[in-house]
């Protein structure tokens, strides 16, 4: 038995992404219609040509009819998927494997989330009858869960809490700077580092500006067999790897876990690199879109994804390695931090930035320098330190590279 991957067997030939933000005047239905039709237009095709759909939504609807009803999609399968913050990426995985299997010629992955209708701040969770012991992700908030990484990282690598706060601030500053150049981003104002550093504390060392936005939005991608890709576009994006790890959730149970890493991310990245034949991600990847739900998360991810040696990512962050103009741009679209985080759409939003950047479809002011590299990475994480779901994809503009 083996995980074989589907390197270069399918390609993305059309994508769209709505503006993310507080879309008070748009329903989930409206966002879905915009995203789905945007994707078909992007691929110069129409809805009738799509054979099957994978819809990712965390809390904004149940069943495939969440998509088929507003789009009036008739006599087609729609699979609704949910995998916490990995939901959007999970819809892509389903669509890609369906096409790779030969079951369908054309599939669409769609993600949507309408978070701002709840009236609540932050994410909520599905209500499942329980025993009241809360599980390990029980009473504390998401920023608190992730802030557990800070003291542990600082202690293990001898980073002074003040230095660590500078690192967090630098990550937030970078992602806001990137988002400010992106017309679809939720937050389009650059934020001064001093403002970020002084923002009110939310949990541990994390301030308001260390947390990603809660937003509405949708995104969609059309997947076809690689050999069919050029029927739709001259510049397809080939799927190199799709890797998902659902954690065994032992970090909050097993004293051997030290809260300085996401082992699930490391495992999912290792698998993705294996599928794609990537040996040195730092050198081979042109850009990465990672799950910066909180600034500390992005810091740890740089090590888990192999972009920096253990205990050194904080220095790389301060050195600007992951800036838009850095050696390996991370979250050039602003990330969850500035682009926003409509859960079900986020994974596809990351893919959308790869779609734009790797195909040179972005304005000069926010274009990354690829230096001959053709690969982009997307990464999602759902849960928190100790127990999470992690997804890594690799896509590229060149087949069989």
């Amino acid at each position, binding site marked *: 038995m083996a995980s074989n991957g589907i390197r270069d067997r399918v390609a993305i030939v059309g994508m769209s992404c709505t503006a993310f933000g507080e879309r008070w005047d748009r329903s989930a239905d409206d966002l879905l219609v915009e995203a789905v039709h945007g994707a078909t237009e992007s691929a110069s095709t129409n809805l009738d040509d799509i054979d099957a759909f994978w819809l990712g939504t965390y809390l904004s609807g149940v069943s495939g009819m969440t998509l088929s009803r507003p789009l009036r999609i008739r006599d087609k399968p729609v699979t609704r998927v949910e995998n916490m913050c990995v939901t959007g990426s999970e819809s892509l995985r389903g669509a890609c494997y369906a096409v790779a299997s030969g079951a369908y010629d054309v599939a669409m992955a769609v993600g949507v989330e309408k978070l701002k209708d*709840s*009236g*609540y*701040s*932050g994410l*909520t969770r599905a*209500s499942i*009858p*329980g*025993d*009241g*012991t*809360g599980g*390990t992700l029980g*009473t*504390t*908030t998401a*920023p*608190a869960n992730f*802030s*557990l990484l*800070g*003291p*542990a990282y600082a*202690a293990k690598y001898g980073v002074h809490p003040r230095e660590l706060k500078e690192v967090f601030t630098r990550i937030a500053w970078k992602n806001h700077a990137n988002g400010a150049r992106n017309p679809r981003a939720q937050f389009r104002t650059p934020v001064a580092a001093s403002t970020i550093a002084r923002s*009110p*504390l*939310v*949990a*541990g060392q994390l301030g308001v500006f260390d947390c990603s936005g809660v937003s509405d939005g949708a995104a969609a991608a059309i997947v076809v067999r690689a050999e069919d890709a050029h029927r739709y576009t001259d510049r397809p994006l080939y799927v190199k790897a799709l890797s998902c790890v659902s954690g*065994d959730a*032992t970090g*909050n*149970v*097993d*004293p051997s*876990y030290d*809260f300085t890493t996401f082992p699930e991310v490391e495992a999912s990245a290792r698998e993705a690199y294996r599928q794609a034949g990537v040996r040195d991600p730092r050198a081979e990847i042109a850009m990465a879109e990672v799950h910066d739900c909180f600034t500390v998360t992005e810091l740890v991810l740089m090590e888990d994804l192999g972009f920096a040696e253990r205990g050194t990512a904080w220095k790389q962050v301060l050195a600007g390695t992951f800036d838009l103009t850095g050696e390996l741009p991370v979250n050039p679209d602003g990330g969850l931090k500035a682009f926003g985080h409509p859960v079900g759409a986020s994974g596809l939003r990351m893919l959308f930035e790869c779609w734009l950047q790797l195909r040179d479809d972005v304005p000069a002011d926010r274009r990354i320098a690829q230096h001959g590299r053709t690969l982009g990475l997307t990464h999602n994480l759902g849960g928190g330190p*100790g127990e999470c779901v992690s997804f890594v994809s690799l896509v590229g503009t060149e087949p069989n590279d």
Partner: protein
Amino acid sequence: MHGIVACEAYIPYHRLERAAISTSLGGGVVSGARSVASYDEDATSMAVEAARSVLRTVPTAARPRRLYLATTVPPYLDKTNATVAHSALALDSGALAVDMCGGVRSGAGAFLAAAEASEPAMALLSDIRTGLPGSADEREGGDAAAAVLFGPGDSDTPVLAEVVSAAAETEEFLDRWRAPGDLASRVWEDRFAEHVYVPLAMDTLSAALKKADLTPGGVDHLVVCGLPRRSVRRVAAGTGIPADRVVPDLAEVIGNPGTAQLGVLLAAALRRAGPGDTIALLLLADGATAFILRTTAQIGRRRPAAPLAGGGAALRYPTFLNWRGMLAREPPRRPDPEPPAAPPAYRSRAYKHAFTATRCTRCGRVSLPPAQVCFHCGAVDTMESHPMARAHGTVATFTVDRLAFTPHPPMIAVVVDFDGGGRFRCELTDADASQVAIGDPVEMTFRRLLTADGVHNYFWKARPVRRAGGET
């Protein structure tokens, strides 16, 4: 011989300085402080904490077969509260657990029932006392619990004191009353109460002494308790028993914890009594109840622990009002908390209430929550029950959550690694966010996490390990 084999008081961590009340509301400054049950405590959870202290060193054979829980503030009606304690203490299902709720007098009933039981029995006396802002009840009340375990005694768990005699007088009159659901009691003029109580109490004490073939001069330690303060003072001063034999009422340091006062002051008496001493317990509540106890030669074997000193930073008065339901605060923009569902709570009661984990018999790893599959070696169904309620641990990492809703912000979340294995992530209660550090020693405490749809969600939290702070 059936008698007291253990007795412990539980005084909650928080204190409200009485001066804080007058600072807010005006009026003269009153000295001292009162104990305050935390927002995550109620009569049942405090009773469990007192009972845990009693059972800590008690062998299985001496564990109670009967449990009587007395309080004026039962968290549940219709449903028995003592069963929560029964479950939290992991008592045998064959042990009876019943409530004696309503009046302060219920405490004397629970004590008597346990004293007269034909098998090991424990009286749990627990109370949260307050009144309308600015009232004497608010100022003079206190929150506490006590557990008194009776049994036949053996070499491991000897009888410390036996009940020599008991007497009661019952009188129906309005000195204090409270309609169900009301936050505060109403009282008649205390001079009227005094008129009724003083002769009643004197008669009751005399009757009990007579049954024991004693005179007031034979009493070494007198405990007079009850909420009618003026009457209690008059009685304590008027029995003919010298003032230095009257056990101090702790009013200055914890206030009057109502139903629990009998047990709390009994614990104080047992701390100071010598072998062969006579203790007279007198309660003024809807009549009077008196018990004459005599300590045994074994009294020194198991002295009640001195209550812990109160929490460092004194509670702010508005916080106190909020906790007692007198001052509503804006809730966060978050979904309402959800109550536990009955079937899953029932299935996991050993974990949820008694904090029983599982331990893999193949690799020895301890799993919290209990698991069928070992997180370490992957073995299936190799687990044995593993009690963790008494385990101590250290803080592996922590955070201060300023966003999470709590009546005492900010919430402190800790990852606890237990001595002897097991990791648990939970809230740290009775603690100061600025004082938490990796490596801090912690222990577990039984708390009420929240109440939703009328369901009290009882579970466990960690608290800093503190040493006894001397006599309070």
